[in-house]
């Protein structure tokens, strides 16, 4: 009897605590969304409210068209998609080698090199990377960002792929080989079709990483033409009086695509992410 009552209390406590945590994590989103539809007079008030008297789209209008965010979104998309595709190709190849030839010395050394690279933070390499990009003549272009974003996700993406390949039985490949497939055919026709969930989570990780990155975009690009979304938000804030309504609208634009993709793919994504991070 007592036990049952205790259990019920535990359940109620669990729900209460989770609701409190959810308010803490979700409140900024809700507030961002509300403010993005508020007209100026309701933004700059000392008595902010959760209700909007006169909802408006003018914040979105200002940030997307007047401040040129449409172009920044396009740039972010181009950079993220290319960096994502590139890192996936590289990670599939390296991950396969890490999984299948783990006994070879080259592979062991590469594995260690990736582990170490994962620990090396971008900000410490800021200056030399800036110099390299300058020498290559790609500072004010997509190329510099694509190179940087790809590099820094390679280790984790590779670990994510290799821990998946570990679960694909060797017998499957041997069967394909007996049927006359060469290594490349085996990879493309047998293994990759099985790996769709892992490919999704690896690609999503690379994409989110590129979409959200701030520092390199802020430093490598100084012209409006190639600017990406995150530095654009920072610069927009730097203007004389901060236009909070437009800033919140810009933030909504930056957050919504990620959130929607995540909601659809979260099961794959979280499983893949965990498999990779435990390995690294």
């Amino acid at each position, binding site marked *: 009897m007592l036990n049952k009552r205790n259990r019920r209390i535990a359940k109620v406590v669990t729900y209460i605590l989770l609701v409190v945590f959810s308010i803490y994590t979700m409140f900024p989103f809700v507030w961002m969304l509300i403010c993005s539809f508020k007209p100026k007079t309701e933004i700059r008030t000392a008595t902010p409210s959760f209700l909007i008297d006169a909802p408006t789209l003018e914040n979105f209008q200002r940030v997307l068209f007047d401040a040129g965010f449409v172009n920044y979104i396009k740039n972010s998309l181009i950079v993220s998609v290319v960096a994502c595709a590139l890192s996936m190709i590289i990670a599939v190849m390296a991950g396969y080698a890490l999984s299948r030839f783990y006994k070879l010395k*080259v592979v062991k050394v590469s594995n260690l090199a990736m582990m170490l690279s994962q620990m090396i933070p971008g900000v410490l390499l800021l200056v030399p990377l800036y110099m*390299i990009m300058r020498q290559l003549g790609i500072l004010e272009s997509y190329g510099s960002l694509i190179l940087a974003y790809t590099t820094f996700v390679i280790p984790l993406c590779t670990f994510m792929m290799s821990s998946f390949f570990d679960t694909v039985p060797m017998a499957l490949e041997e069967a394909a080989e007996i049927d006359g497939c060469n290594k490349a055919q085996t990879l493309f026709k047998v293994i990759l079709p099985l790996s769709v969930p892992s490919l999704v989570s690896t690609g999503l990780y690379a994409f989110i990483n590129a979409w959200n990155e701030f520092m390199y975009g802020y430093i490598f690009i100084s012209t409006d033409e190639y600017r990406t979304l995150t530095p654009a938000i920072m610069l927009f804030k730097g203007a004389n009086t901060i236009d909070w309504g437009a800033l919140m609208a810009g933030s909504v634009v*930056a957050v919504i695509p990620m959130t929607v993709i995540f909601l659809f793919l979260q099961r794959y994504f979280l499983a893949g992410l965990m498999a990779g*991070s435990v390995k690294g």
Partner: protein
Amino acid sequence: MKSLRRLTRDQKKFRTALIMLAPALVFLAGMIAYPLATVIHDAFTYRHLINSSMTGFAGLENFKTVISDEHFFDAVQHTIIWTVFSVLGEYIMGMVTAVLLNQKFKGRAIFRTFIFIPWLVPIIVAGMTWEWILNPEFGIFNYMLTSFGIVDAPINFLGNSDYALATVIFVNIWRSFPYYTISFLSAMQSIPGDLSEAAAIDGAGMFRRFFSVTLPQLRSVSLVIVFIHVIWTAVNYDFIWVMTEGGPNYATETLPIMIYRYSMRTFNVGAASALSTMMFAVMAILFVFYYRKRTKISEDMA
């Protein structure tokens, strides 16, 4: 005959492995190893981004420049406070939420999604939104505090040097703890349920079960995640730059902000590299401890 064939097959394996690894290795060599070597080299060289007449071997001059910077020791202190309290807060929040979510109840998936979402937000957006919430003039948080009578006058959380560092730490915890939640949760789900059941039959209460059964099983994942986050937090540039740019009056200046200041504001590449090299040295020492501890844990487990 047989041994010859074996050899060629091994060679073939080696060749395949190398081809598959090549693109990754090229990237890591060109974009991580080479820049890393450059940083260490530049630390001992006079080098300026604009003034190319500054050249030659500098010995320890660059290190002297950095250490004699009037803000250096404050920045070290801020970096330590920033790292320790961020990681501690994230760990506790992550553990509590993981324990809560590791039970069977209705709506679990929704709560998990709610709690994970901050991790998807770009740091710039997290910083900006919180800055707006905490704004002293128009922010909702100060409005609530004053209307409930908790404080008399609005607090300028980011503009006051007494609160700025704590505020940035708070926002960092908000953005980063979900990763701990998910890691702990997936580790907890791999703990065999009968362990906890056996402890329950032996009369262990909820807290006892957590500290004697669950927590020891999480040692390995805790070590990995804490170590990586200590490094990532100590060298994080984005959060602080986005919210305070190191201010007000250097109250939130950490070492990465100093690196940025040296390299992109005063263009003294030598000094920036010296500072980076010092941070690498500390990280390398931490890594040795981490590696030893990790080996020890996996031996204990085996």
